[in-house]
């Protein structure tokens, strides 16, 4: 380390050992960025002065928050007035302002804190942690890379003296990273690091309990800054880098023996999940009931407003399905209405329009396009003012309906005088679906209905996260399909699986090129012409067991779109059977 320091110091040297006064004199006439430089100089001379920095930073942040507050005040002066609406409770500033940067505060730590003091309130005291950032003068471009390393090292040495317990990461990570900034090498070397893992985990645990977040922060990677105005952006990017490595280093410890697949109970299919959850006694049922009753009192008001040309959108945490269902059964019984489950994976605007034309309007014709169909519906409803239709859409913001075209069409439907729309949204960014034009079509009235009810129905269709956790579905279907194939076809597929598993650690693996695959199949006496192979592949493709992609070189690449864990399990089972 020392040698490196010396090697790269020739430029920085001058800065490092210039006294405070000189630096001050030198830069007194400059503002902003100069200030930072000064601090860096101090920092190099006297590590203790680092403590001064956070105040400056915090001040900046405070100002930011203040600005936010002004804006919020301008927008709505009645924040305190609102008693019912959660939106007002915290104001805008907390959600939208950039908060203190997150580092490796571990969930485990938090969890143990939470757990160890049951029934008591545990404060994470995140906000109290002084945010410490090290400001380093912007280095000239040519030197930046080398400087980074150098600065990192100097950081390290400083912290060695001040915070011996805060070395968790810098001591361990650099060993495997070995100063390399490349993403790939970092993760690769991590994988090779299996032996050290046990040990590392231990140290980490020990240090985890000792380290204080502020110390950890003080060590944050070299952050190059020019002026305070650029601070935000720079923080973000450097944070990204930091967090990228953090994420990788934490998974390094975990992925090898702590994947969900190895945990027996991780495999839950929908049914078991439901059974298990059935045993959970719901908490706060009295309060929830009260909440729901509050909302139910609004039913008549909703009806009134719907009839007067507004459309209603419900938002807030918790499934609003039951609420809407009660709305439906209590006030909509005597009118024509269509319930649309937006969370249903097969839903589309087409099917909504179809159910309107076919079932509501009893029209049996077909339409050229959705727009035609829409026009037809619009005309029908305009002609016949006695027609009235209520649309209830659960999850208007679902994956299938959030597209621009779908929203446009639904918006146009809802803008009709005699079509009344009441919908619910859940996604954090749902309001982004609507631009001004769409909003004026929808003519929304917003109602907050926070119910805290579980999204049972909405999440019951195997979404990607659950598939990964249950995993049983692709595996069983894989076995099922392959059993119906000829031994040769099974051999072909097994060949592909093996090749893919061999390459699973290669991040640039894009598939098995067709020519090579054909060659190997021929050698294994599985096919005799590339036509037979193609016929086989088509069959796989039909069962969604195979994907082909054209590479940049025009060669066809074959890939099995199933995760490697399932594949290796499949191979194990195959071998057991044979």
């Amino acid at each position, binding site marked *: 380390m020392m040698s490196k320091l010396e090697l790269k110091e020739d430029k920085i040297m001058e800065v490092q050992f210039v006294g405070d006064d000189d630096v001050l004199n030198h830069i007194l006439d400059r503002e902003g960025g100069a200030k930072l430089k000064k601090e860096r100089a101090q920092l190099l001379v006297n590590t203790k002065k680092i403590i001064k920095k956070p105040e400056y930073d915090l001040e900046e942040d405070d100002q930011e928050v203040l600005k936010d507050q002004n804006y919020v005040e301008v927008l*709505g002066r*009645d924040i305190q*007035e*609102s008693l*019912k*609406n*959660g*939106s007002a*409770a915290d104001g*805008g500033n907390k959600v939208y302002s950039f*908060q*203190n940067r*997150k580092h*490796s505060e*571990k969930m485990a730590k938090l969890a143990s804190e*939470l757990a160890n003091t049951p*029934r008591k309130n*545990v404060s*994470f005291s995140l906000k109290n942690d002084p945010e410490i950032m090290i400001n380093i003068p912007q280095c000239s471009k040519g030197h930046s890379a080398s400087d980074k390393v150098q600065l990192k090292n100097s950081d390290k040495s400083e912290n060695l003296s001040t915070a011996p317990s805060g070395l968790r990461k810098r001591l361990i990570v650099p060993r495997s990273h070995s100063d390399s900034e490349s993403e790939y090498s970092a993760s690769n070397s991590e994988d090779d690091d299996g032996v050290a893992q046990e040990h590392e985990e231990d140290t980490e645990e020990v240090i985890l309990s000792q380290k204080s977040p502020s110390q950890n922060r003080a060590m944050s990677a070299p952050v190059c800054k020019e002026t305070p105005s650029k601070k935000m952006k720079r923080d973000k990017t450097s944070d990204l880098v930091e*967090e990228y490595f*953090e994420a990788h280093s934490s*998974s390094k410890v*975990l*992925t090898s023996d702590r994947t969900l*697949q190895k945990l027996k*109970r*991780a495999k*839950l299919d929908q049914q078991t*999940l439901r059974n298990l*959850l059935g045993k*959970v006694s719901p*908490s706060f049922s009295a*309060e929830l009931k009260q909440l729901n009753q509050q909302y139910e*009192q609004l039913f008549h*008001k909703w*009806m009134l407003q719907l009839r007067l040309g*507004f459309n209603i959108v419900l938002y*807030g*945490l918790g499934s609003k399905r039951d609420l809407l269902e009660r709305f*439906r059964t209590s006030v909509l019984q*005597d*009118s*024509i*209405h*269509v*319930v649309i489950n937006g969370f249903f994976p097969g839903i589309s605007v087409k099917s*909504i329009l179809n159910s309107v034309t076919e079932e509501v309007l009893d029209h049996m014709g077909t339409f050229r396009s959705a727009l035609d169909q829409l026009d037809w519906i619009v005309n029908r409803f305009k002609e016949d003012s*006695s027609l009235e239709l209520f649309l209830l859409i659960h999850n208007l913001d679902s994956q299938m309906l959030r597209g621009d075209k779908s929203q446009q069409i639904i918006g146009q439907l809802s803008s009709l005088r005699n079509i009344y729309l009441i919908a619910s949204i*859940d996604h*954090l960014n749902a309001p982004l679906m609507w631009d*001004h*034009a769409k909003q*004026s079509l929808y003519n929304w009235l*917003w*109602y*907050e209905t*926070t119910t805290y009810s*579980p999204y049972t*129905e909405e999440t019951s269709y195997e979404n*990607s996260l659950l598939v990964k956790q249950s995993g049983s579905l692709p595996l069983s279907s894989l076995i099922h399909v392959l059993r119906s194939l000829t031994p040769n076809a099974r051999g072909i597929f097994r060949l592909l699986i093996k090749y893919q598993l061999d390459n699973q650690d290669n991040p640039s693996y894009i598939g098995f090129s067709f020519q090579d695959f054909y060659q190997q199949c021929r050698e294994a006496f599985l096919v005799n012409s590339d036509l037979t192979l193609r016929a086989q592949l088509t069959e796989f493709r039909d069962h969604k067991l195979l994907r082909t992609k054209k590479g940049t070189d025009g060669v066809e690449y074959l890939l099995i779109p199933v995760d490697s864990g399932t594949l290796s399990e499949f191979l194990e089972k195959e071998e057991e059977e044979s």
Partner: protein
Amino acid sequence: MATSSVSKGCFVFKPNFKKRKISVPVGDYFNKGKNESEDGKLRFETYQLIWQQMKSETEQLQEELNKNLFNSLIEFLQKSCSGFQKNSRDWGCQIKLREIPTAALILDIKHFLQKLASQLMGCCVDEDSKEGSIQVAQKRTHCSMDSLSSWYMNVTQKTDPKMPRKKRTSSSQWQSPPVVLILKDMESFTTKVLQDFIIISSQHLHEFPLILIFGIATSPIIIHRLLPHAVSSLLCIELFQSLSCKEHLTTVLDKLLLTTQFPFKLSEKVLQILTNIFLYHDFSIQNFIKGLQLSLLEHFYSQPLSVLCCNLPEAKRRINFLSDNQCENIRRLPSFRRYVEKQSSEKQIALLTDERSLKAETQSLLENLHVYHSNYFLVLRCLHQFTSSLPKYPLGRQIRELYCTCLEKNIWDSEEYVSAFQLLRMLAKDELMAILQKCFQVFKSSSEKQLGSTAKRIEEFLAQFQSLDEAKEEEDISGSQPKGLQKTDLYHLQKSLLEMKELRRTSKKQTRFEVLREKVVNFIESLVREYLLPPDTQPLHEVVYFSAAHTLREHLNAAPRIALHTALNNPYYYLKNEALKSEEGCIPNVAPDICIAYKLHLECSRLINLVDWSEAFATVVTAAEKMDASSVTSEERNEIIHARFIRAVSELELLGFIKPTKQKTDHVARLTWGGC
């Protein structure tokens, strides 16, 4: 549940034919659901009446505002049509610009355009739409412009037989009607397509007369930014600009709120919110009117006494039929109670016990309120005449700003008011006279008796100023006698100047103009103090003022993200259970699962290891469970906890906080930034 299925997403429910009523009258919903539905029906009817009036007023307003624009547009179209007739070879294509920074307004305009087109061109509209579809077909089949023009020839020939009718409608001689192509939102077109289209169609113009109308939301410069000179030179552009939306808002406010025509009024906060949404969010008049409608509805829905919010004679009549409950409601009004407290004790007793005297008093109070309003708006307009021309606009440039300040508090207590009046005391004569003239018009236009004298006063002032002119001329002649030029040195000059200054200060001699100006300003100030009292000083103001600003904000300008955040971060806010009570930034371990999972995930950076997360979750939940000594075995309990974790995670995914990632096995990616 009847609406869940694994194979279907839409469920249609049609009630039996017998059961199906034609439709439940809307008013019924007005009464249901509310316990105190006093005079509900009447209230709803009043609501509908007022809303219809307001709506037609705004529509009329819009029509008027756009009239000029459309007239010139029509003229322009006709002119260019005749240009085609004359077979001029040059490209008479033209472009319409309008400067409307509002999406909604564009929509409005578009509707108007369609209306206009249909009025103007009869059959041309069909062609327009057909042309649209042809255009699509063209893109699909790569057919050339030739086919388009031959199609056009066909159509014009086909429509020839119908010529007489067409002539009747449009009165001008459309031998070959031009095709008008309206590009509603020019900015959203791909420049390449637009350029190519213009170039191609310019070459076919002689056989395919085309008029382009561009709708532009930003500024005219955009045309030149989107189209290179070579292309834009092919266009003969004429610019049409519509009224800016702010002016539009001013007129709408003027017609709907600053008038006694509609009894319904908005309180300061409501007005503030509506204008803020307008100015900071969307610039949409349509939304503003929607907000107005909602406030009207809310007012009539929530305030039982709003039944009296109608024109004065009708309100007086209605007072006689008020029920006991309604009388009680009146007595409960804060403003009425304040009023009663000021009365003599006998009268207090009478008001609080005797219904007849209460009703009589209410009638007179309502009348007072009416008079108050009519005076209020006159004086407000007058004051606005004075303040709107001041430098730096201490009281705002628009009358709505002035109105807001006046609604909020005694305006004369504000600093801005003081500085405004200081400035007023320095006005020059011609300015002052111009303003007074305007004020005179304002007062003259009203038929109110009380303020009729004011108009007279102003007239007198004006006359005095006039006479001042004449007097001054005389004075000038007399005062301009040269004293004879004396030579003097610097010292004496300074001395004499100082003396003059001293003299002026001590004697404070004012010219007659200054005296008069002072009088005028004082007069205005007395008017303001007398008539511009904030409405909440008036008894019974609750009847006509809608003040529930937060409901309006909640429903119009909701913040779903913040609601989500609050629900996840601070469940006590909704659930009101003591066990959930916590300090800022913490969460008790008995909180709902999703809150715990959310809180834990905030501790992570961009990627979250599911195993870690699930263990942390289990730690917290187990600790909470131990308290309620459960009888289940530990293995089963673990399973249940894991199931709960899975549920919480998939719910967070649904809410958009995390998403599965392939970057690492069993990891999810966070989609939000920072923790709170």
